């Protein structure tokens, strides 16, 4: 089964994303900070189909995690979607330029997030 990985310091967001993943038929792995997220990515590199990455977290921020993942040849192929309260155009440009495939601002509706996940994984149909 394809897995999603949510890296977010908010337990609520991780739970919401786990619920949406379940609806889409994906198991969801969780990490509460960037370092833990990178470790989980390394451990499950062949199973994870998408990373949902928060921007503002204690320790490494999301952009640093993204850059670190993209610099690692073992995990750089795994698509990353930013999930963040930062909706400014400049943030989105930075994330896409750093290798994020998609970007979802918080708050989000369940339907919105579900369709963004499918799009990010190339399963959206459009």
């Amino acid at each position, binding site marked *: 089964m394809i897995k999603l990985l949510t890296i977010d310091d908010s337990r609520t967001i991780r739970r919401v994303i786990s619920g949406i993943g379940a609806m889409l038929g994906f198991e969801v792995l969780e990490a509460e900070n960037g370092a833990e997220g990178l470790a989980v990515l390394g451990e499950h590199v062949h199973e994870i189909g998408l990373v949902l990455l928060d921007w503002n977290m204690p320790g490494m921020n999301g952009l640093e995690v993204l850059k670190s993942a993209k610099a690692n040849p073992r995990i750089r192929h795994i698509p990353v979607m930013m999930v963040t309260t930062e909706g400014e155009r400049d943030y989105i440009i930075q994330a896409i330029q750093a290798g994020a495939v998609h970007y979802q601002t918080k708050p989000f509706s369940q339907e919105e997030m579900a*369709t963004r996940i499918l799009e990010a994984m190339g399963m*959206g149909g459009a």
Partner: protein
Amino acid sequence: MAISREEFDLIRSFVHEHSGIQIGEGKEYLVENRLTVLMVQNGCKDFIELHKKLVADAGPLRAKVVDAMTTNETLWFRDASFFSAVSDFIVPQLMEKAARQPQVRIWSAACSTGQEPYSIAMLLDHARRKSRGQQAPPLEKFQILATDISPSVLVIAAAGRYNQLAISRGMREAFLERYFNKTGTMAYEVDPAIRKLVTFQQFNLKNSFDGLGPFDLILCRNVLIYFSNELKAEIYRKLHARLTPDGLLAIGASESPRGYTSNFEQVMVGGAALFRPKKGS
């Protein structure tokens, strides 16, 4: 950098032209929120460049923009008074029809993630069970066509899998028990017999309705409110042409075809207002 007036106007007129949907004044945040990623992903520095690309290229980018702008939340049995009319009056009428004609066709014209067509399918099965099989037509006699302009929501709808939050939005306890199978710890799957009744298909209401129907019941609720008056008139005419002479059109409680066409008459069904083709129209 916030979206400019010029950018907003260009994008909203594009979305209107290609989907019929009107993005209202003050909805700049919606365009910004949903389309900035596509803008950046496509190498555009602003929405004016994105608009140029959209005009020049009829490929998947157009579909992605329309898709991003049309995702809406939805509920099971949305609008309690409407669904009690469906359950108490419309479903029994459809059962009678199914007993005397080969097929009964229903169209959910903007089905989003599938709650509306599955709700109808469950009510049909529920009515059959209540009749304890006496003279009840088989479920195969019913066909539900469920369409939406957004291909992404249709992926979710066709999977028929919902989590606790989606279920909590209006699903009845008894129906949850009867019509869903729990998968894993967090999701519920619509029973295959119910899913079999519904065919999902991507469809833009701006397109020709040729080849669709005729339908005994069309649900087009809270959809046309997003369309211009000209398009509303055109769609009401097309809906009228796809209804059987005694078919029913269900629209939102605040909507009416009056002012757009004179081909419908209002009928009160168990406290809910529905519309049927005027005789001879």
